């Protein structure tokens, strides 16, 4: 049987089963450009479906990539009918929580004064992993909305993730939460009725009910994240030693979480030997180095879709530039035929 693997993401772009696509890698390798490109190509290839691109990186770049402002509410990209973007802002989410707490504790002057100063947001905002937790909450909200048929329904959600460590923490959350909820379930089972009586009156909390609902959602997410037909992770890297090493470690971590990884995008390649017109000594030397690691990538990842993408002369910003650049994810980049695109990108003001 033919086990050759295409050097493009056509299979992913035209996939009708995937619900969650993560795009991640080391910092500065082109994750945002790649995630925007994948989203655009999927939206163009499947115009009847709705796609959502979420940035979970606290240092958001989606607004810069598309040249328009996105916020915590999903908003359609100008010029695309079926692609929306959202930037999860942990500080804004925490501020909302703080404001809600102030409103609920209106009678309690001491606590209200404390909260009005943004104390809750300050305290919780400094907790390590809070960004990942808030992103995860967004995921759970989407699942809940889809099940209840509320709001905009998205067929596929693409995540522009934060650099590697943050993403791995995010992906660990379902397992961590599941264990925590098991423990809380034991405790609440013993003390739940007593706690409910203490918090009675208008705030009659059904602790067990809420925890069961949360646990059920977390289990669903765990199952979906480990289903290769529903979830996949696209690794983005550059052809350098540290990036290659970190990509390998990332792939191994993801496999240990039972997450499917079958695609790698290698960015910022010079293809200097195919560009006789613009071929300085530095580019030649650098391309030689890139080739060495590219060969190793081909050897290590022969069963992966390895997509090689060029380093362009200009920034890949704005919808038009992203469209031009992203089509090579679908068809593959041929440095001999397609090298004109490197110099054709429109300058963004």
């Amino acid at each position, binding site marked *: *049987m033919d086990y050759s693997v295409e050097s493009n993401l056509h299979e992913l772009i035209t996939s009708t089963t995937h619900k969650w696509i993560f795009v991640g890698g080391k910092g500065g390798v082109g994750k945002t450009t790649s995630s925007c490109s994948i989203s655009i190509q999927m939206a163009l290839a499947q115009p009847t479906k709705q796609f959502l691109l979420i940035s979970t990186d606290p240092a958001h770049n989606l607004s810069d990539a598309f040249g328009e402002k996105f916020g915590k509410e999903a908003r359609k990209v100008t010029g695309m009918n079926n692609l929306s973007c959202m930037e999860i802002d942990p500080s804004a989410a925490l501020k909302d929580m703080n404001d809600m707490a102030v409103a609920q504790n209106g009678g309690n002057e001491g606590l209200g004064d404390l909260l009005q100063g943004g104390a809750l947001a300050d305290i919780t905002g400094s907790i390590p992993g809070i960004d990942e937790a808030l992103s995860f909450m967004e995921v759970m909200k989407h699942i809940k909305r889809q099940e209840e048929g509320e709001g905009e329904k998205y067929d596929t959600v693409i995540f522009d993730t934060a650099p590697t460590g943050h993403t791995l923490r995010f992906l660990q959350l379902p397992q961590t939460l599941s264990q925590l909820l098991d423990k809380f379930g034991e405790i609440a089972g013993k*003390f739940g009725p007593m706690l409910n009586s203490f918090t009675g009156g208008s705030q009659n909390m059904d602790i067990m009910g809420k925890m069961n609902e949360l646990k059920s959602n977390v289990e669903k997410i765990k199952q979906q994240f480990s289903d290769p037909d529903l979830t996949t992770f696209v690794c983005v890297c550059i052809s350098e*030693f540290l990036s290659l090493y970190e990509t*390998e470690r990332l*792939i*191994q*971590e993801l496999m240990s979480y039972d997450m499917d990884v079958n695609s790698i995008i290698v960015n910022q390649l010079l293809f200097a030997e195919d560009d006789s017109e613009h071929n300085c000594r530095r580019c030649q030397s650098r391309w030689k180095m890139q080739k060495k690691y590219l060969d*190793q990538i081909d050897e290590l990842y022969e069963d992966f879709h390895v997509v090689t993408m060029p380093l362009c002369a200009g920034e890949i910003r704005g919808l038009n530039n992203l469209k031009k650049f992203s089509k090579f994810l679908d068809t593959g980049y041929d440095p001999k035929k397609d090298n004109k695109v490197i110099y054709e990108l429109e300058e963004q003001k």
Partner: protein
Amino acid sequence: MSEISETEKRRLLRERRQQKFGKGGATSRLAKITGQTENSFLSTESPIDSKSSTPEPSGRNSNEDSTKQMDELLAQIHQQQPKKTDQGGAAKNPELDLFAQLAKMQQGDASAPTATSETPDIFAQLLKSVQMDQQPQQGIESVFGNQPIDAAVLEAHNVAVNKLKAYTIVVKWFFFILPYVYYISHTGREAFQLTTVDFVMNRSNFFTIFTSFEVVTLSVYYQLLMSAEKSHNINTLNSNSKILKLVSMVPPGLVPIPNLRGKISQALQYWDVLSMYLTDMAFAILLTGIFQYYHAM
């Protein structure tokens, strides 16, 4: 290619990838990457191989550590069941002493009871328990252990206790209170004058005599109750009181009162005594009313 073969191809490729990363393959891949540079300090330990080789409680996973700590905390909460101490039961009966003090006070004995260690009074005990910290049961031997109670034994014990209570009430009411109240209400009638017990028949001494009688009978009752509890190895109050069961659910430290359960147990015991006294008093008042009514007719 057909849809089925595409799916099959994806599945096979996935298996091939997993095979290459499994069984030490992941570590060798990292070694291959790091080996191409000299003096590389990067780790070649694979997350896949380290997770599969180390046993579950590896101590490296902070989540495992935290769940372990949670397990220990739960076990501690279970074990911190307040010992079933009957603070008035293990030592001399404080209720008897208290009523003795009350009786003395009624008889005009103004001498304060000697608050020695042999006769601890309720207030001294309360003060002791307030001064104690979270471990008041140290040094006080629990008469009753913490073994789970057999339901049949508990039921038999409850039947015995209820029988004891019923007999006590019957004896008190019909062999003392009723005739005493009858004699009191008929003072002056020749047929019922008893010259040798003028003190007893004197109406102004009713409360003193009644209280003294109550002290004696309640003491006897509690002695009998204690012997029954000892024989069955059951503390009646701890086993049957819903209030104590509720209080035992309160985790230690939640309410800023040390030995909360012990205090509430003691309060319930005193209330039990007081309620019996008040019930008998009410019966006496009722009888007085009935006898007065019939005499008036």
